[in-house]
């Protein structure tokens, strides 16, 4: 089997990049290792801060409120 080496994996940025993901296993492993070595804390990015169950719960709550008011959530969106 032909092993291919990637140069400069030591320079992987702790934030990662699409280019690193595209390198596949070697890039991803190097990125994960780099994060640990650098003590990098993954920022709690807004798009990930809620659990799906929480989101579902909120959507349900909004739908119920809209129902009480007699308006559908679609109508609210339009407004």
């Amino acid at each position, binding site marked *: 089997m032909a092993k291919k080496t990637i140069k400069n994996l030591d320079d992987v940025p702790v934030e990662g990049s699409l280019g690193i993901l595209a390198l596949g296993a070697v890039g991803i492993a190097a990125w994960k290792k780099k994060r640990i070595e650098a003590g990098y804390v993954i920022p709690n990015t807004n798009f990930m801060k809620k659990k*799906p169950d929480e989101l579902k719960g909120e959507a349900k709550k909004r739908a119920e409120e809209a129902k009480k008011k007699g308006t559908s959530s679609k109508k609210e969106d339009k407004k």
Partner: protein
Amino acid sequence: MSKRKANRVLLIGWDAADWKVINKLIDENKMPTLSKFVNEGVMGNLATLDPPLSPMLWTTIATGKRADEHGIMGFIQPNKKGDGVTPVLSTSRKVKALWNILMQEGMKSNVVGWWPSHPAEPINGIYVSNFYHKLSNRVNFNKPMAESTVHPKELHKTLEALRVFPWELTSEHLLPFVPDAAKIDQEKDYRLNSIAKIIAETATIHSAATWAMENSEWDLMAVYYDGIDHFGHGFMNYHPPKMDRIKQEDYDLYKGVVEAGYRFHDMMLERLLELAGEDTTVIIVSDHGFHSDHLRPKRLSKAPAAPAAQHRAFGIFAAKGPNIKKDEIVYGSTLLDITPTILDLFGLPIGEDMPGKPILQIYENPEAPDYIPSWENIPGDCGMHSEEQRSDPWADKEAMEQLIALGYIEAPGEDKKAHVDKTTRESKFYLARTYLDSNRPQEALDILETIYKEAPDQARFGQYLIKCYLELNRPDDGMRILEELQKAFPNSAAQTNLLEARLWLKKGETDQALNYLEKAKNTSKDSFTVTLELGNVYLMKKMYTKAETCYLECIDINPSSPMSHFGLGRIYLKLKKNMDAAEQLIAAVSLKYFFPAAHYFLGEALLRLKYYDRALEAYQVAVQQAPGMEKAHKRLIKLYKDIFHKPEKVKEHEDFIESKIKPLKMKKETT
């Protein structure tokens, strides 16, 4: 025995990849790796099958069999107990996949992410199932990997550690997709979340694939990416040009997501090609395309699998490697051809029970392929699940019901039962469509009659039943169902007008048909199907100018419709505009190679133009595709007699008509 043409084969599946999007990106130099790939290899359309549902189609790609043979029907199936449903599983596949056949021939395969492929099959190679990359969005939550995701089991921990979770991604990953992500109010808009999930899942598959390529010996490496399809379903409506119903702020935020998805796949392709090396034959395929322009559906129905309406009938095919032509286009391939092509690349015979053919046009020096009756009968370990593990979920369900009726087990709760029944009915619908798609209406009939009776609230079951009656030349039965549909669904006039027109046409009443088509045209002016049908009826009634207008309108709506070019070609033949006719008919067969009537009429145009060699070729293809086409045999006889002076060929075709076609005609007349 056929010679082995490939040292090894890398088969890359890009679900829903479409040349319409790719060509534009290549022109703008945004997919440099694929651009170089097609310049150094071949490319073409890959016709999909109906129904265009990915698990069914990817199983066809890997087995060379249609769904009625391979057994995967839709997305979900009843579970083993029959009291609920599960995603479709590899244990439901009834026939050998490429990797099973290769194992029997002593070759090694790696399979990553194929749909469906869970639980992992014990093949001689690395097998990572399609449950591997299904991740959770929960922060800091490393969802444990399902058992039987990886074969061999020793690799479980290694591959588990290589997954990428959405919460690990940063703005570095997200901003190329949504440059203005900071403007999004994420309390209300969760779409960044789904982008992160698709990127992470795609990277996870790529991680396992590249690891397997680097750390094992292989003859076949098959890897399946679902990212392009997922980006399409989530974000194609925001892709340029802007659709009327899309809000400007949404368009501005998400217009680049689909493009970024393709570019990410191009980056991953570069790595795959680097790992494969120049001596590997690489094939890239998609199971269907994805509407990206004015053909994007404005609304999706609420029926199961409705998003499939966004799929386009042509996927992509591209190949590169030793002995493969360079910078050429191949025509007329379908999903059914991929397994025969790969078997031929390995110098292995093709099963006569595989309805496809090897794509010999790809080769610099094509050779005749070998055939065997079937691979299914070849004994020995092929790495499939054991008979006990393999199951027919539909039969399991029947068995379950029998057990309930006999009082052996308790009936499941009403809701669960309804869900299972619905799933079973849906799968039967897909099976019926598979039969219709392969010209077997008689086999579809019972199924459609049953499910329409069971669920008359599903207009699509009735519509397909009418289509089936049309195929079976039973317009009166079709009319009966149509009346029921018209009563039950008074608002779907355009659809029922179209069906009614087709039924009148079948009854030979062209005036009535025209009347309903014109009505249908009034209710849905930009409908491609109605306009095409209208063109066909005008052509039948020799109203050539009106027919031409309809076909030209169809080409405006969808330039890649073979039927519109075919219709135009026939009009130009009638009008003796032979060069124009030839051009249109060439366009038709380029878009759909398996099209015997188009090859025949192309022969007619070329004959009139005195291009005898090419006319001969066109008639030959027509009789290869439709051996019973007597008029094409007669043209060949005339050409061989008068132009090419080959009496043995004249005799061959005369004998064929006498021994095969005439007896059939007599039998038909008697019955």
